[in-house]
């Protein structure tokens, strides 16, 4: 579970300072799906990066199962990301020279998984997202939706506790957007992930349990509206975060 307390993030910009986050307090329980919505440039992605340990807050604490990510050394945060946090990006961020299977395997490399087991798990992960027959394709040979599926497989192959998605449908057309969100919803339900999705798209945000509205660095949480796409609680057992995040790399 996440506990954010008084988190701020400032960026120097020329002679001024940009206050990207202004005292954010947030609790995310195990198995929650939180969507963070808001206009561009109001701190959504900054918050997601801090949740994922990709950046450090200027002040405040970011506790993930009791450990303050803001105080961890770079090596330790890297280990936390390797073992427990999966990322999905708007631009997919696949390695262009590696096949779909190899891209998924890159997530297992830091965990010291043997090559044989890596191949097997990557293959399964691709099958779980419906791309079992595209394992040998390069990203350039896949559509946008397929690339995002590969990215989802890559994020989930290591069985993380947390999945952070930054505008996962931002580069997709409407039909593909719905497919991807349906897939994410299904995976969230099946695996009891703790998921945080950043989006500016209301139709995407509505699928989450709760919606956080980000405006000028301030976060306001409200429950999702009930609708056709609103999720129900995960049917299966919740995926509990380990109480201690041990290094596997």
């Amino acid at each position, binding site marked *: 579970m996440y506990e954010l307390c008084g988190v701020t993030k400032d960026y120097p910009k020329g002679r001024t300072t940009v206050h990207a986050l202004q005292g954010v307090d947030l609790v995310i329980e195990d198995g929650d799906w939180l969507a963070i919505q808001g206009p561009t440039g109001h701190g959504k992605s*900054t918050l997601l990066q801090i949740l*994922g340990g990709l950046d450090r807050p200027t002040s405040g604490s970011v506790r993930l199962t009791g450990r303050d990510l803001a105080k961890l050394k770079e090596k330790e945060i*890297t*280990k936390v990301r390797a073992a427990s946090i999966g990322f999905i990006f708007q631009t997919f961020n696949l*390695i262009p020279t590696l096949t779909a299977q190899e891209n998924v395997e890159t997530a297992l490399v*830091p965990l010291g998984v043997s090559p044989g087991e890596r191949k097997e798990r990557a293959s399964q992960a691709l099958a779980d997202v419906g791309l079992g027959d595209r394992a040998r394709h390069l990203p350039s040979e896949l559509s946008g939706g397929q690339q995002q599926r590969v990215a989802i497989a*890559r994020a989930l192959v290591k069985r993380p506790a947390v999945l952070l998605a930054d505008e996962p449908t931002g580069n997709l057309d409407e039909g593909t957007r719905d497919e991807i969100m349906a897939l994410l919803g299904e995976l969230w339900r099946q695996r009891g992930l703790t998921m945080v999705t950043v989006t500016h798209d209301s139709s995407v945000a509505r699928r989450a349990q709760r919606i956080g509205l980000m405006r000028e660095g301030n976060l306001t949480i409200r429950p999702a509206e009930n609708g056709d796409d609103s999720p129900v609680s995960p049917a299966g057992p919740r995926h509990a975060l380990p109480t201690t995040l041990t290094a596997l*790399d």
Partner: protein
Amino acid sequence: MFVTYLLRELRRRMRQAIFIALGLALGVGLVITVTAAASGVSAGQRTVLKSLYGVGTDITVTKAPTASSGGGPGFRFGGSKGTSVSRSVLVSGGLGTLKSSDVTAVDSQKDVSAAVGALVLNDLKFSGSFKPGGSAGGSGGGSAGGSGAFNANSFTVTGVDPADDSLGPLASGTIVSGHGITSSEAHKNVAVVDSDYATSASLKVGSTVTVASGKFTVVGIVRAAQGVTDADVYIPLARAQALASMPSEVNTIYVSAASATDVSAAASAVSRALPGATVTTSSDLASQVTGSLSSASTLASNLGKWLAVMVLAVAFGLASILTVAAVTRRVREFGTLKAMGWTSRRIIRQVMGEALVIGVVGGAAGVAIGYAAAAVVQAVVPPLTATTGTANQRSGGFGRPTAAAAHTVSVHLTVPVSVSAVALAVALAIAGGLVAGSFGSWRAVRLRPADALARVV
């Protein structure tokens, strides 16, 4: 994953990788070629010096001629009208004399391994007829009142000590027929003849050659070292001393130092033992060498060396710039890997690995270029010449002290590529790859993941 990722990435930027590798290859090839050329020039210089000294000689000892040493032939032709004369004399070749005891003194020095004496002479044959009126000198002219027609021929004769054939003027040659002068022949009328002279004088083993007033049996034919012009005839030292009326005298002492590092010490010791003598080491002689070999040496060691260094520096710089540029284009890629938990060390290893492969390929190509260029240089470069003028050289004329004569040796340059040069060059190429990889790696990991992910490619 490491190898797969590395090879795929190099394939993606194949043209750039080849460009970097070629740059390194050119630098490496130049280093190999210049090193090989310098080595060949050094070998050429050693050949030149050996030809002047003989194999095993580190120091030569001579003495400047005085008025009474190795003096003129004193031709005297008294007689009445229409007298025919024919004289053959041995005269010292423009060098002063040293005693045989001086050889012993030199040999006994601490840093000297061995010393042998030799007598470098000219055999002058003077024949013709004259009308009465006075005496005629040598080439310096005669007195008033007489006239005549004369022929003068000469060839060079060196008296060698057969006790040590590894040192001295015969040591650099190769006996191609018969044998050299043995210790048992030290007092016999035997001779070894230079192959070129033997051809011109139609001499072979068993022939007879006249030296001064003595008839010598040819026991061996010697071929001089490459490009060397040495004595025409070699006879035992004792016989040369007798024929030249120079008992117990020599005019050149050949010295071998105890080791290559002792040459200076040996030279100093010899100078102290023989004050007034001219003691010359190979380095002294090397500094007097002029000609195209000397120019080639300067070219290889100065221009060649700095050119190679410059090309390598440019290749290193280009490799670094291009590697950094390639890594900059992949900043978001590396940010993504870091987001997935890849450590900075793993990313550095990936970038360094790519740069190293380029360095190794460049090194291998450079070795091939170096070998090819060395072969081309060896094939097309004309023979180089080395000229040195010292008092050690034989002069022509009739025994009068003359200005030191120039001695020119022609050397065909070899361009040997040594294993150490190849190893050095490959090490430089790998170093180039590592330098480039270091810059690239620094670029790859210095950004925080959030900043790296924010970069727009």
